[in-house]
């Protein structure tokens, strides 16, 4: 692999990794609320969480641009509190990837939480475990393979993120130019076909590995949940 290719892959993995790890706690909290919570407006929350899945990515990117622009509400806060801007930075690309991966991750984590038999949690309570110990020793271990599978799925989705990213943080080589954006740039360049082939092959391989790992983890949960 040439240095240029390596740099693109490294940047993609960095952005995908940061997006996934950063989204995981938020996705878990949302999944927990949707799986176990009983509150008015649950359907609305469910709908909002799933919006990035169906709204045109370019719209999501544009909204992020409005929010994180120096005059936008979030951009203004970041600027004043931390003196940073994520516009046209790799951190912005990670935010875009995170938003786009969120619905998929919430869905998968929600399924794995719903797969945990609450009767087991009741049994743990009668055996002297409070809510937190029950969560840590019963719910979490049983849901964990599913949660990791969800993380891998989110990672795979992040690697493929294009529309929201290019709209929000543009296509800056070495900063926001991930694999899909590099493919797009190479396609626009006369004689860029060789590069497109290589980048596309790498993209497919990375995605396939992530999906296989995700699937294997998901099966592991299936086995674990064999309740007697």
């Amino acid at each position, binding site marked *: 692999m040439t240095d240029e290719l390596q740099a693109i892959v490294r940047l993609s993995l960095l952005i995908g990794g940061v997006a996934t790890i950063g989204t995981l706690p938020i996705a878990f909290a949302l999944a927990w609320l949707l799986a176990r919570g009983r509150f008015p407006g649950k359907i609305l929350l469910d709908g909002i969480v799933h919006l990035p899945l169906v709204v045109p990515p370019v719209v999501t990117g544009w909204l992020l641009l409005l929010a994180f622009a120096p005059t936008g509400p979030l951009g203004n806060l970041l600027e004043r509190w931390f003196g940073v801007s994520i516009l046209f930075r790799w951190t912005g690309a990670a935010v875009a990837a995170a938003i786009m991966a969120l619905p998929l991750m919430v869905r998968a984590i929600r399924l794995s939480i719903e797969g945990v038999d609450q009767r087991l949690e009741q049994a743990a309570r009668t*055996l002297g475990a409070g809510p937190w110990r029950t969560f840590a020793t019963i719910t979490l271990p049983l849901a964990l393979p599913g949660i990791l599978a969800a993380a891998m799925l989110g990672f795979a989705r992040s690697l493929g993120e294009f529309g929201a990213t290019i709209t929000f943080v543009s296509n800056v080589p070495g900063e926001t130019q991930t694999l899909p954006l590099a493919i797009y740039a190479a396609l626009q360049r006369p004689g860029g076909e060789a590069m497109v082939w290589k980048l596309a092959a790498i993209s497919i391989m990375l995605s396939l590995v992530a999906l296989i790992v995700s699937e294997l983890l998901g099966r592991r949960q299936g086995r674990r949940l064999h309740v007697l």
Partner: protein
Amino acid sequence: MSFDIDVSHRRGGVVVGAAFQSGAGSTVLFGPSGVGKTSLLMMIAGLLRPDRGRICVAGRPLFDADRRINIAPEHRRAGVVFQDPRLFPHLSVRRNLLYGADGPTTLAEIATRLDIAHLLDRWPRTLSGGEARRVAIGRALLRKPDFLLLDEPLSSLDRTRREEAMQVIERVRDDMRLPMLIVTHDPEEAERLGGDQIIRL
């Protein structure tokens, strides 16, 4: 007084509840399926909140709507054996048994008494129905409970296993002298385990 109970709980249009008092030893809750025997047990275990009433076991108030007492299930010290064994699938039999164990463990003694000593290193999914049930009983006993709640402890066992399990329960009743509430829909079981303390729902 072992059990001093007067509660009700409404779910949908159906009200389940009961009012009874019983003395030491075992008490049997007897009635056809669907009258809320299990719900009543869950209320005593703290897993279902009654709408009104009070629950007092061995002199200790566990729930009292008027006095705003509602002890969390983990602090009720109830040994609950559910209708299904509810063993934790990701923990070995040994770790299942020790999950709620309190103080110096009597694992070896209880495992021998329940004839599950040879199963300690197995996984719950490899156990037969009868074995799983004995492990569930052992797990509840190792909690060192103040009282026992058994929900249809003999259902879905074949005739031989049934007799074995019945003897285990009788031994626990006679050796450990714990207040015990047993739910069953089988008249023969009720007669044998409850003696003269049979509450009909």
